[in-house]
Protein backbone atom coordinates (compact mmCIF):
# COMPACT_ATOMS: atom_id res chain seq x y z
CA UNK A 1 0.00 0.00 0.00
CA UNK A 2 2.99 2.36 0.50
CA UNK A 3 3.70 2.53 -3.20
CA UNK A 4 0.04 3.09 -4.05
CA UNK A 5 -0.20 5.86 -1.44
CA UNK A 6 2.98 7.47 -2.78
CA UNK A 7 1.58 7.33 -6.30
CA UNK A 8 -1.65 8.94 -5.17
CA UNK A 9 0.21 11.66 -3.29
CA UNK A 10 2.87 12.12 -5.95
CA UNK A 11 1.63 15.43 -7.30
CA UNK A 12 1.01 16.96 -3.90
CA UNK A 13 4.36 15.71 -2.58
CA UNK A 14 6.25 17.38 -5.44
CA UNK A 15 4.25 20.58 -5.15
CA UNK A 16 4.65 20.99 -1.40
CA UNK A 17 8.30 19.97 -1.33
CA UNK A 18 9.03 22.55 -4.01
CA UNK A 19 7.04 25.10 -2.06
CA UNK A 20 8.99 24.45 1.14
CA UNK A 21 12.31 24.48 -0.70
CA UNK A 22 11.45 27.84 -2.21
CA UNK A 23 10.43 29.11 1.21
CA UNK A 24 13.73 27.96 2.70
CA UNK A 25 15.82 29.43 -0.10
CA UNK A 26 14.08 32.78 0.17
CA UNK A 27 14.48 32.80 3.93
CA UNK A 28 18.19 32.07 3.88
CA UNK A 29 18.73 34.45 1.01
CA UNK A 30 17.15 37.28 2.99
CA UNK A 31 19.32 36.61 6.04
CA UNK A 32 22.06 39.12 5.05
CA UNK A 33 19.45 41.38 3.53
CA UNK A 34 17.61 41.56 6.85
CA UNK A 35 20.86 42.50 8.53
CA UNK A 36 21.18 45.44 6.21
CA UNK A 37 17.61 46.53 6.69
CA UNK A 38 18.03 46.35 10.43
CA UNK A 39 21.20 48.32 10.23
CA UNK A 40 19.61 50.98 8.07
CA UNK A 41 16.48 50.98 10.14
CA UNK A 42 18.43 52.14 13.16
CA UNK A 43 19.36 55.32 11.34
CA UNK A 44 16.43 55.90 9.09
CA UNK A 45 12.98 55.04 10.29
CA UNK A 46 11.45 56.51 7.12
CA UNK A 47 12.83 53.51 5.28
CA UNK A 48 10.73 51.22 7.39
CA UNK A 49 7.51 52.83 6.27
CA UNK A 50 8.38 52.11 2.68
CA UNK A 51 8.88 48.41 3.26
CA UNK A 52 6.28 46.01 1.93
CA UNK A 53 3.59 45.01 4.40
CA UNK A 54 4.55 41.39 4.91
CA UNK A 55 8.06 42.49 5.68
CA UNK A 56 6.88 44.97 8.23
CA UNK A 57 4.79 42.29 9.93
CA UNK A 58 7.65 39.90 9.92
CA UNK A 59 9.88 42.39 11.61
CA UNK A 60 7.37 43.95 13.92
CA UNK A 61 6.21 40.69 15.45
CA UNK A 62 9.69 39.69 16.39
CA UNK A 63 10.19 41.17 19.79
CA UNK A 64 13.90 40.90 19.90
CA UNK A 65 14.88 42.47 16.61
CA UNK A 66 18.41 43.15 17.53
CA UNK A 67 18.86 39.64 18.83
CA UNK A 68 17.76 38.31 15.47
CA UNK A 69 20.29 40.42 13.69
CA UNK A 70 23.18 39.13 15.74
CA UNK A 71 22.14 35.61 16.54
CA UNK A 72 21.92 33.14 13.63
CA UNK A 73 20.45 30.46 15.84
CA UNK A 74 17.69 32.74 16.98
CA UNK A 75 17.01 33.80 13.40
CA UNK A 76 16.57 30.16 12.40
CA UNK A 77 14.26 29.32 15.32
CA UNK A 78 12.08 32.37 14.99
CA UNK A 79 11.93 32.62 11.22
CA UNK A 80 11.84 28.99 10.06
CA UNK A 81 10.16 27.05 12.87
CA UNK A 82 8.10 29.79 14.49
CA UNK A 83 7.12 31.46 11.27
CA UNK A 84 7.31 30.24 7.67
CA UNK A 85 7.49 26.48 7.97
CA UNK A 86 5.72 26.21 11.31
CA UNK A 87 2.76 28.34 10.35
CA UNK A 88 2.19 26.33 7.22
CA UNK A 89 2.38 22.92 8.93
CA UNK A 90 -1.35 22.32 9.64
CA UNK A 91 -2.32 23.36 6.11
CA UNK A 92 0.43 21.18 4.69
CA UNK A 93 -0.89 18.15 6.59
CA UNK A 94 -4.43 18.95 5.46
CA UNK A 95 -3.45 19.09 1.79
CA UNK A 96 -1.66 15.77 2.11
CA UNK A 97 -4.32 13.95 4.08
CA UNK A 98 -7.81 15.13 3.14
CA UNK A 99 -8.28 12.74 0.16
CA UNK A 100 -6.79 9.72 1.96
CA UNK A 101 -10.15 7.95 2.35
CA UNK A 102 -12.59 10.52 0.96
CA UNK A 103 -11.24 10.29 -2.58
CA UNK A 104 -11.60 6.50 -2.64
CA UNK A 105 -15.24 6.82 -1.62
CA UNK A 106 -15.91 9.79 -3.89
CA UNK A 107 -14.43 8.05 -6.95
CA UNK A 108 -15.85 4.61 -6.14
CA UNK A 109 -12.45 2.96 -5.97
CA UNK A 110 -13.06 2.02 -2.33
CA UNK A 111 -14.98 -1.05 -3.54
CA UNK A 112 -11.77 -2.39 -4.99
CA UNK A 113 -10.08 -2.27 -1.60
CA UNK A 114 -13.16 -3.38 0.35
CA UNK A 115 -13.52 -6.55 -1.69
CA UNK A 116 -9.85 -7.46 -1.37
CA UNK A 117 -9.02 -6.71 2.25
CA UNK A 118 -10.65 -6.60 5.64
CA UNK A 119 -11.49 -3.23 7.08
CA UNK A 120 -8.64 -2.94 9.63
CA UNK A 121 -6.03 -3.84 6.99
CA UNK A 122 -7.44 -1.23 4.63
CA UNK A 123 -7.42 1.35 7.43
CA UNK A 124 -3.84 0.73 8.50
CA UNK A 125 -2.80 0.17 4.89
CA UNK A 126 -3.79 3.75 4.16
CA UNK A 127 -3.04 5.45 7.48
CA UNK A 128 0.49 4.16 8.04
CA UNK A 129 1.88 4.91 4.55
CA UNK A 130 0.13 8.28 4.61
CA UNK A 131 1.72 9.08 7.95
CA UNK A 132 5.11 7.93 6.73
CA UNK A 133 4.97 10.27 3.75
CA UNK A 134 3.80 13.27 5.80
CA UNK A 135 6.34 12.54 8.53
CA UNK A 136 9.07 12.00 5.96
CA UNK A 137 8.59 15.41 4.43
CA UNK A 138 8.35 17.08 7.83
CA UNK A 139 11.52 15.39 9.07
CA UNK A 140 13.33 16.43 5.92
CA UNK A 141 12.48 20.08 6.35
CA UNK A 142 13.01 20.36 10.11
CA UNK A 143 16.52 19.01 9.67
CA UNK A 144 17.45 20.47 6.32
CA UNK A 145 16.99 24.09 7.41
CA UNK A 146 19.75 24.10 10.07
CA UNK A 147 21.99 22.01 7.82
CA UNK A 148 21.69 24.42 4.93
CA UNK A 149 22.36 27.36 7.23
CA UNK A 150 25.47 25.64 8.57
CA UNK A 151 26.69 24.99 5.05
CA UNK A 152 26.05 28.63 4.19
CA UNK A 153 28.48 29.56 6.92
CA UNK A 154 26.11 30.66 9.64
CA UNK A 155 26.75 29.70 13.23
CA UNK A 156 23.89 27.31 13.87
CA UNK A 157 23.91 24.17 16.01
CA UNK A 158 21.55 21.39 17.08
CA UNK A 159 21.03 22.78 20.55
CA UNK A 160 18.56 21.25 23.03
CA UNK A 161 16.34 24.23 22.30
CA UNK A 162 16.30 23.43 18.59
CA UNK A 163 15.58 19.76 19.27
CA UNK A 164 12.72 20.67 21.60
CA UNK A 165 11.28 22.81 18.83
CA UNK A 166 11.59 19.94 16.35
CA UNK A 167 9.91 17.45 18.69
CA UNK A 168 6.98 19.81 19.25
CA UNK A 169 6.50 20.19 15.51
CA UNK A 170 6.66 16.47 14.91
CA UNK A 171 4.02 15.92 17.59
CA UNK A 172 1.90 18.68 16.03
CA UNK A 173 2.12 17.06 12.61
CA UNK A 174 1.13 13.72 14.13
CA UNK A 175 -1.89 15.26 15.81
CA UNK A 176 -3.09 17.13 12.71
CA UNK A 177 -2.53 14.03 10.62
CA UNK A 178 -4.85 12.04 12.89
CA UNK A 179 -7.48 14.79 12.96
CA UNK A 180 -7.59 15.37 9.20
CA UNK A 181 -7.44 11.62 8.52
CA UNK A 182 -10.50 11.32 10.74
CA UNK A 183 -12.35 13.94 8.66
CA UNK A 184 -11.44 11.97 5.55
CA UNK A 185 -12.90 8.80 7.06
CA UNK A 186 -16.11 10.41 8.24
CA UNK A 187 -17.10 12.30 5.10
CA UNK A 188 -18.06 10.71 1.79
CA UNK A 189 -17.01 13.50 -0.54
CA UNK A 190 -13.76 15.42 -0.80
CA UNK A 191 -15.07 18.90 -0.11
CA UNK A 192 -16.29 18.40 3.44
CA UNK A 193 -12.99 17.15 4.84
CA UNK A 194 -11.25 20.15 3.28
CA UNK A 195 -13.78 22.58 4.72
CA UNK A 196 -13.59 20.98 8.15
CA UNK A 197 -9.80 21.14 7.96
CA UNK A 198 -9.76 24.77 6.91
CA UNK A 199 -12.13 25.56 9.74
CA UNK A 200 -9.66 23.97 12.15
CA UNK A 201 -6.61 25.68 10.63
CA UNK A 202 -8.08 29.15 10.59
CA UNK A 203 -10.69 28.86 13.32
CA UNK A 204 -8.64 27.63 16.27
CA UNK A 205 -6.55 30.83 16.58
CA UNK A 206 -9.75 32.69 17.50
CA UNK A 207 -9.86 30.83 20.81
CA UNK A 208 -6.85 32.80 21.99
CA UNK A 209 -9.01 35.91 22.17
CA UNK A 210 -10.38 34.72 25.50
CA UNK A 211 -8.25 33.81 28.46
CA UNK A 212 -10.33 30.71 29.32
CA UNK A 213 -10.16 29.13 25.88
CA UNK A 214 -6.63 30.10 25.03
CA UNK A 215 -5.37 26.56 25.44
CA UNK A 216 -7.61 25.47 22.56
CA UNK A 217 -5.45 27.35 20.11
CA UNK A 218 -2.63 24.96 19.24
CA UNK A 219 -0.56 27.46 17.28
CA UNK A 220 1.60 28.69 20.18
CA UNK A 221 2.55 25.03 20.68
CA UNK A 222 3.02 24.31 16.99
CA UNK A 223 5.22 27.38 16.59
CA UNK A 224 7.10 26.52 19.77
CA UNK A 225 6.64 29.90 21.44
CA UNK A 226 7.53 28.61 24.88
CA UNK A 227 10.69 27.11 23.44
CA UNK A 228 11.54 30.37 21.72
CA UNK A 229 10.83 32.74 24.59
CA UNK A 230 11.40 30.68 27.74
CA UNK A 231 13.54 27.93 26.25
CA UNK A 232 11.54 25.06 27.67
CA UNK A 233 9.73 22.13 26.09
CA UNK A 234 5.94 22.04 26.63
CA UNK A 235 5.61 18.53 28.01
CA UNK A 236 1.99 18.63 29.16
CA UNK A 237 0.66 19.96 25.87
CA UNK A 238 2.73 17.31 24.07
CA UNK A 239 1.26 14.56 26.20
CA UNK A 240 -2.29 15.81 25.74
CA UNK A 241 -1.85 15.98 21.95
CA UNK A 242 -0.43 12.48 21.82
CA UNK A 243 -3.29 11.08 23.89
CA UNK A 244 -5.78 12.92 21.68
CA UNK A 245 -4.04 11.53 18.60
CA UNK A 246 -4.35 7.98 19.87
CA UNK A 247 -8.02 8.54 20.73
CA UNK A 248 -8.81 10.04 17.32
CA UNK A 249 -7.09 7.20 15.47
CA UNK A 250 -8.92 4.65 17.61
CA UNK A 251 -12.31 6.27 16.97
CA UNK A 252 -11.43 6.65 13.27
CA UNK A 253 -10.72 2.94 13.00
CA UNK A 254 -14.02 2.21 14.74
CA UNK A 255 -15.94 4.46 12.37
CA UNK A 256 -14.23 2.93 9.33
CA UNK A 257 -14.97 -0.61 10.51
CA UNK A 258 -18.66 0.17 10.92
CA UNK A 259 -19.13 2.38 7.89
CA UNK A 260 -21.50 1.44 5.06
CA UNK A 261 -20.39 1.85 1.46
Amino acid at each position, binding site marked *: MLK*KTMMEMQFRIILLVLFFILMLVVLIATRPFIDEIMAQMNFDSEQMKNLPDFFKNMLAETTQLSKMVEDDQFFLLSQWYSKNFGQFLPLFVLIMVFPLFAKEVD*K*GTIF*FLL*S*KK*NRPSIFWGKVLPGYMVVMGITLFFVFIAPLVMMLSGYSVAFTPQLLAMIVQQLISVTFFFALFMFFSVVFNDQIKPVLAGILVCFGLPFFSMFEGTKWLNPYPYVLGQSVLTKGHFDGIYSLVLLILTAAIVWVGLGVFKKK*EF
Partner: protein
Amino acid sequence: MLERRISEKESGSIGAEKKALVIKGLDKVYKGDVHAVKEIDFDVNEGEVHALLGPNGAGKTTTIKSVLGFIHYQGDIRVFNEKIDDVRPNVAFVPEDKSFYEFMTPEMAIKVCTRIVDQFDPNRAFDFMRRFSLPMKKKIKGFSHGMKTSLYLSLCLAQKASLYIFDEPTWGLDPIRRDDVLEIIRNLVIDGKTVLYTSHIISEVEKIADRISILFDGRILFSGYTDDIKADFRVFYLPLDEQLPNHYQFLSSQKDREKLVILTADEKTIHFLRQAEQAEEVVPNLEMFFQTLLRGKHYA
Protein backbone atom coordinates in the same frame (compact mmCIF):
# COMPACT_ATOMS: atom_id res chain seq x y z
CA MET B 1 -41.78 -34.90 -13.82
CA LEU B 2 -42.00 -36.16 -10.27
CA GLU B 3 -40.21 -39.34 -11.30
CA ARG B 4 -37.44 -37.37 -12.85
CA ARG B 5 -36.93 -35.39 -9.67
CA ILE B 6 -36.65 -38.55 -7.61
CA SER B 7 -34.21 -40.18 -9.98
CA GLU B 8 -32.13 -37.05 -9.88
CA LYS B 9 -31.78 -37.25 -6.13
CA GLU B 10 -30.91 -40.93 -6.19
CA SER B 11 -28.20 -40.66 -8.77
CA GLY B 12 -26.07 -38.20 -6.90
CA SER B 13 -22.90 -39.74 -8.27
CA ILE B 14 -21.98 -36.73 -10.39
CA GLY B 15 -21.07 -33.67 -8.39
CA ALA B 16 -22.81 -33.65 -5.04
CA GLU B 17 -24.00 -30.10 -4.48
CA LYS B 18 -21.72 -28.07 -2.27
CA LYS B 19 -22.71 -24.51 -1.55
CA ALA B 20 -20.50 -21.59 -2.51
CA LEU B 21 -22.95 -19.14 -1.00
CA VAL B 22 -25.92 -19.46 1.32
CA ILE B 23 -28.16 -16.49 2.12
CA LYS B 24 -30.80 -16.85 4.81
CA GLY B 25 -33.33 -14.21 5.73
CA LEU B 26 -31.36 -11.32 4.26
CA ASP B 27 -33.11 -8.07 5.05
CA LYS B 28 -31.89 -4.55 4.45
CA VAL B 29 -33.49 -1.23 5.30
CA TYR B 30 -31.47 1.81 4.28
CA LYS B 31 -31.60 5.10 6.14
CA GLY B 32 -34.77 6.92 5.23
CA ASP B 33 -36.84 3.74 5.45
CA VAL B 34 -35.95 2.33 2.06
CA HIS B 35 -36.64 -1.38 2.36
CA ALA B 36 -34.28 -2.61 -0.35
CA VAL B 37 -34.27 -6.34 0.37
CA LYS B 38 -37.01 -8.20 2.21
CA GLU B 39 -36.06 -11.41 3.99
CA ILE B 40 -34.69 -13.23 0.98
CA ASP B 41 -33.19 -16.73 0.92
CA PHE B 42 -31.15 -18.23 -1.84
CA ASP B 43 -27.99 -20.17 -2.42
CA VAL B 44 -25.37 -20.68 -5.08
CA ASN B 45 -23.97 -24.15 -5.71
CA GLU B 46 -20.29 -24.63 -6.32
CA GLY B 47 -19.52 -24.78 -10.01
CA GLU B 48 -22.60 -23.02 -11.25
CA VAL B 49 -23.33 -19.72 -12.92
CA HIS B 50 -26.03 -18.08 -10.89
CA ALA B 51 -27.67 -14.97 -12.28
CA LEU B 52 -29.47 -12.42 -10.15
CA LEU B 53 -32.06 -11.01 -12.47
CA GLY B 54 -34.38 -8.11 -11.95
CA PRO B 55 -35.27 -4.58 -12.95
CA ASN B 56 -33.29 -1.62 -11.62
CA GLY B 57 -33.93 -1.04 -7.95
CA ALA B 58 -35.04 -4.61 -7.32
CA GLY B 59 -32.27 -5.14 -4.75
CA LYS B 60 -29.57 -6.88 -6.78
CA THR B 61 -26.72 -4.59 -5.85
CA THR B 62 -27.86 -4.42 -2.22
CA THR B 63 -27.78 -8.21 -2.07
CA ILE B 64 -24.25 -8.30 -3.48
CA LYS B 65 -23.06 -5.52 -1.18
CA SER B 66 -24.38 -7.53 1.76
CA VAL B 67 -22.61 -10.66 0.59
CA LEU B 68 -19.34 -8.74 0.42
CA GLY B 69 -19.88 -7.05 3.77
CA PHE B 70 -19.98 -3.50 2.41
CA ILE B 71 -23.18 -2.71 4.31
CA HIS B 72 -24.90 -3.82 7.51
CA TYR B 73 -27.79 -6.23 7.17
CA GLN B 74 -30.08 -8.59 9.03
CA GLY B 75 -29.89 -12.28 8.32
CA ASP B 76 -27.14 -14.80 7.78
CA ILE B 77 -24.74 -15.00 4.83
CA ARG B 78 -22.11 -17.71 4.44
CA VAL B 79 -19.50 -17.89 1.71
CA PHE B 80 -18.00 -21.37 1.45
CA ASN B 81 -19.55 -21.93 4.84
CA GLU B 82 -17.57 -19.06 6.38
CA LYS B 83 -17.98 -15.39 7.13
CA ILE B 84 -16.88 -13.28 4.17
CA ASP B 85 -13.95 -11.75 6.06
CA ASP B 86 -12.39 -15.20 6.42
CA VAL B 87 -12.53 -16.06 2.72
CA ARG B 88 -11.81 -12.77 0.92
CA PRO B 89 -8.80 -14.03 -1.06
CA ASN B 90 -11.15 -16.66 -2.51
CA VAL B 91 -13.68 -14.14 -3.73
CA ALA B 92 -13.11 -11.86 -6.72
CA PHE B 93 -15.44 -8.98 -7.42
CA VAL B 94 -16.36 -6.51 -10.15
CA PRO B 95 -18.60 -3.74 -8.79
CA GLU B 96 -21.42 -1.95 -10.55
CA ASP B 97 -19.22 1.15 -10.56
CA LYS B 98 -16.27 0.16 -12.73
CA SER B 99 -14.00 3.06 -11.77
CA PHE B 100 -10.40 2.20 -11.12
CA TYR B 101 -7.68 4.66 -10.08
CA GLU B 102 -7.81 7.19 -12.90
CA PHE B 103 -4.23 8.38 -12.68
CA MET B 104 -2.96 4.86 -13.38
CA THR B 105 -2.34 3.13 -16.69
CA PRO B 106 -3.39 -0.52 -17.11
CA GLU B 107 0.27 -1.42 -16.69
CA MET B 108 0.46 0.38 -13.36
CA ALA B 109 -2.85 -1.14 -12.30
CA ILE B 110 -1.40 -4.62 -12.78
CA LYS B 111 1.66 -3.70 -10.72
CA VAL B 112 -0.47 -2.31 -7.91
CA CYS B 113 -2.75 -5.37 -7.93
CA THR B 114 0.25 -7.69 -7.83
CA ARG B 115 1.27 -6.00 -4.58
CA ILE B 116 -2.16 -5.65 -2.99
CA VAL B 117 -4.29 -8.56 -4.19
CA ASP B 118 -3.78 -12.07 -2.85
CA GLN B 119 -3.31 -14.80 -5.45
CA PHE B 120 -3.04 -12.32 -8.30
CA ASP B 121 -1.50 -13.52 -11.55
CA PRO B 122 -0.11 -10.54 -13.50
CA ASN B 123 0.39 -12.60 -16.67
CA ARG B 124 -3.26 -13.53 -16.71
CA ALA B 125 -4.17 -9.86 -16.35
CA PHE B 126 -1.90 -8.99 -19.29
CA ASP B 127 -3.50 -11.75 -21.38
CA PHE B 128 -7.02 -10.53 -20.74
CA MET B 129 -6.10 -6.91 -21.38
CA ARG B 130 -4.50 -7.90 -24.67
CA ARG B 131 -7.62 -9.87 -25.53
CA PHE B 132 -9.72 -6.77 -24.82
CA SER B 133 -7.12 -4.73 -26.77
CA LEU B 134 -6.66 -2.17 -24.01
CA PRO B 135 -3.98 0.51 -24.46
CA MET B 136 -1.46 -0.47 -21.77
CA LYS B 137 0.26 2.87 -21.45
CA LYS B 138 -2.72 5.20 -21.53
CA LYS B 139 -4.19 6.67 -18.39
CA ILE B 140 -7.47 5.15 -17.29
CA LYS B 141 -8.87 8.65 -16.98
CA GLY B 142 -9.51 8.80 -20.73
CA PHE B 143 -11.14 5.36 -20.97
CA SER B 144 -14.66 4.74 -22.28
CA HIS B 145 -17.24 2.83 -20.21
CA GLY B 146 -16.52 -0.34 -22.13
CA MET B 147 -12.76 -0.01 -21.64
CA LYS B 148 -13.21 0.55 -17.92
CA THR B 149 -15.35 -2.57 -17.71
CA SER B 150 -12.76 -4.57 -19.66
CA LEU B 151 -10.00 -3.32 -17.39
CA TYR B 152 -11.85 -4.16 -14.20
CA LEU B 153 -12.81 -7.58 -15.53
CA SER B 154 -9.20 -8.31 -16.48
CA LEU B 155 -7.97 -7.41 -13.01
CA CYS B 156 -10.73 -9.44 -11.36
CA LEU B 157 -10.21 -12.52 -13.56
CA ALA B 158 -6.47 -12.45 -12.85
CA GLN B 159 -7.22 -13.15 -9.19
CA LYS B 160 -7.19 -16.90 -8.63
CA ALA B 161 -10.43 -17.07 -6.67
CA SER B 162 -13.09 -19.74 -6.25
CA LEU B 163 -16.11 -17.47 -6.35
CA TYR B 164 -16.41 -14.62 -8.85
CA ILE B 165 -19.05 -12.00 -8.22
CA PHE B 166 -19.88 -9.65 -11.08
CA ASP B 167 -22.28 -6.75 -10.80
CA GLU B 168 -23.36 -5.99 -14.39
CA PRO B 169 -20.18 -7.41 -16.00
CA THR B 170 -21.10 -6.40 -19.55
CA TRP B 171 -21.85 -2.76 -18.80
CA GLY B 172 -20.86 -0.53 -21.71
CA LEU B 173 -19.48 -3.37 -23.84
CA ASP B 174 -20.32 -3.77 -27.50
CA PRO B 175 -22.10 -7.02 -28.50
CA ILE B 176 -18.95 -8.82 -29.66
CA ARG B 177 -17.05 -8.08 -26.46
CA ARG B 178 -20.16 -9.04 -24.51
CA ASP B 179 -20.13 -12.52 -26.04
CA ASP B 180 -16.43 -12.65 -25.29
CA VAL B 181 -17.13 -11.97 -21.63
CA LEU B 182 -19.88 -14.59 -21.54
CA GLU B 183 -17.45 -17.14 -22.92
CA ILE B 184 -14.87 -16.17 -20.31
CA ILE B 185 -17.49 -16.64 -17.60
CA ARG B 186 -18.36 -20.06 -18.99
CA ASN B 187 -14.69 -21.03 -19.02
CA LEU B 188 -14.52 -20.11 -15.35
CA VAL B 189 -17.14 -22.70 -14.44
CA ILE B 190 -15.58 -25.25 -16.77
CA ASP B 191 -12.46 -24.77 -14.65
CA GLY B 192 -14.52 -25.49 -11.56
CA LYS B 193 -15.12 -21.92 -10.39
CA THR B 194 -18.43 -20.49 -9.22
CA VAL B 195 -19.99 -17.35 -10.63
CA LEU B 196 -22.68 -15.10 -9.20
CA TYR B 197 -23.63 -12.19 -11.35
CA THR B 198 -26.33 -9.62 -11.81
CA SER B 199 -27.81 -8.56 -15.08
CA HIS B 200 -30.92 -7.10 -16.54
CA ILE B 201 -30.18 -8.40 -20.02
CA ILE B 202 -32.16 -11.60 -20.30
CA SER B 203 -30.70 -12.90 -23.56
CA GLU B 204 -27.32 -12.82 -21.85
CA VAL B 205 -28.53 -14.74 -18.85
CA GLU B 206 -30.18 -17.33 -21.06
CA LYS B 207 -26.84 -18.06 -22.67
CA ILE B 208 -24.82 -18.81 -19.58
CA ALA B 209 -26.80 -19.04 -16.36
CA ASP B 210 -27.37 -22.47 -14.83
CA ARG B 211 -29.67 -21.02 -12.26
CA ILE B 212 -31.44 -17.74 -11.89
CA SER B 213 -32.99 -15.88 -9.01
CA ILE B 214 -35.46 -13.22 -10.02
CA LEU B 215 -35.59 -10.25 -7.69
CA PHE B 216 -38.44 -7.81 -7.74
CA ASP B 217 -39.14 -5.08 -5.21
CA GLY B 218 -36.74 -6.66 -2.72
CA ARG B 219 -38.22 -10.15 -2.91
CA ILE B 220 -37.25 -13.30 -4.78
CA LEU B 221 -40.07 -14.26 -7.12
CA PHE B 222 -38.34 -17.32 -8.49
CA SER B 223 -35.12 -19.19 -7.93
CA GLY B 224 -34.33 -22.25 -10.01
CA TYR B 225 -32.61 -23.85 -12.97
CA THR B 226 -33.06 -22.16 -16.33
CA ASP B 227 -33.49 -25.57 -17.89
CA ASP B 228 -36.29 -26.42 -15.48
CA ILE B 229 -38.27 -23.45 -16.67
CA LYS B 230 -38.61 -25.10 -20.07
CA ALA B 231 -39.12 -28.53 -18.57
CA ASP B 232 -41.67 -27.62 -15.90
CA PHE B 233 -43.32 -24.31 -16.64
CA ARG B 234 -46.10 -23.60 -19.08
CA VAL B 235 -47.79 -20.40 -20.06
CA PHE B 236 -51.47 -20.57 -20.93
CA TYR B 237 -53.40 -17.91 -22.76
CA LEU B 238 -57.09 -18.12 -21.88
CA PRO B 239 -60.21 -16.10 -22.55
CA LEU B 240 -60.74 -13.39 -19.94
CA ASP B 241 -63.90 -14.95 -18.54
CA GLU B 242 -62.35 -18.35 -17.94
CA GLN B 243 -63.28 -19.59 -14.47
CA LEU B 244 -60.36 -21.03 -12.59
CA PRO B 245 -60.96 -23.33 -9.63
CA ASN B 246 -59.08 -21.74 -6.76
CA HIS B 247 -57.30 -24.85 -5.61
CA TYR B 248 -55.16 -24.80 -8.72
CA GLN B 249 -51.75 -23.36 -8.30
CA PHE B 250 -49.95 -20.93 -10.45
CA LEU B 251 -47.00 -18.67 -10.02
CA SER B 252 -48.37 -15.68 -11.81
CA SER B 253 -51.44 -14.48 -13.59
CA GLN B 254 -52.09 -11.35 -15.56
CA LYS B 255 -54.47 -9.85 -18.05
CA ASP B 256 -52.76 -9.01 -21.27
CA ARG B 257 -54.02 -8.24 -24.77
CA GLU B 258 -57.49 -9.28 -23.70
CA LYS B 259 -56.24 -12.66 -22.63
CA LEU B 260 -55.76 -14.17 -19.26
CA VAL B 261 -52.14 -15.28 -18.98
CA ILE B 262 -51.29 -18.01 -16.51
CA LEU B 263 -47.79 -19.14 -15.61
CA THR B 264 -47.66 -22.42 -13.74
CA ALA B 265 -45.50 -25.42 -12.98
CA ASP B 266 -48.20 -27.36 -11.17
CA GLU B 267 -49.02 -30.59 -13.00
CA LYS B 268 -52.65 -30.69 -11.97
CA THR B 269 -53.15 -27.13 -13.10
CA ILE B 270 -51.41 -27.80 -16.40
CA HIS B 271 -53.56 -30.88 -16.91
CA PHE B 272 -56.70 -28.93 -16.16
CA LEU B 273 -55.86 -26.00 -18.39
CA ARG B 274 -55.04 -28.29 -21.29
CA GLN B 275 -58.65 -29.46 -21.23
CA ALA B 276 -59.97 -25.90 -21.35
CA GLU B 277 -61.41 -24.77 -24.63
CA GLN B 278 -59.62 -21.97 -26.44
CA ALA B 279 -56.56 -22.45 -24.27
CA GLU B 280 -53.24 -21.81 -25.93
CA GLU B 281 -50.25 -23.52 -24.34
CA VAL B 282 -46.73 -22.25 -24.75
CA VAL B 283 -43.38 -23.43 -23.44
CA PRO B 284 -41.97 -20.17 -22.10
CA ASN B 285 -38.48 -19.00 -22.95
CA LEU B 286 -36.68 -17.04 -20.28
CA GLU B 287 -37.83 -13.69 -21.64
CA MET B 288 -41.50 -14.71 -21.58
CA PHE B 289 -41.09 -16.32 -18.18
CA PHE B 290 -39.49 -13.19 -16.78
CA GLN B 291 -42.04 -10.80 -18.26
CA THR B 292 -45.04 -12.88 -17.21
CA LEU B 293 -43.64 -13.24 -13.73
CA LEU B 294 -42.93 -9.55 -13.32
CA ARG B 295 -46.11 -8.22 -14.83
CA GLY B 296 -48.47 -10.66 -13.22
CA LYS B 297 -49.89 -11.09 -9.75
CA HIS B 298 -47.93 -13.56 -7.74
CA TYR B 299 -49.10 -16.68 -6.03
CA ALA B 300 -46.16 -18.47 -4.55
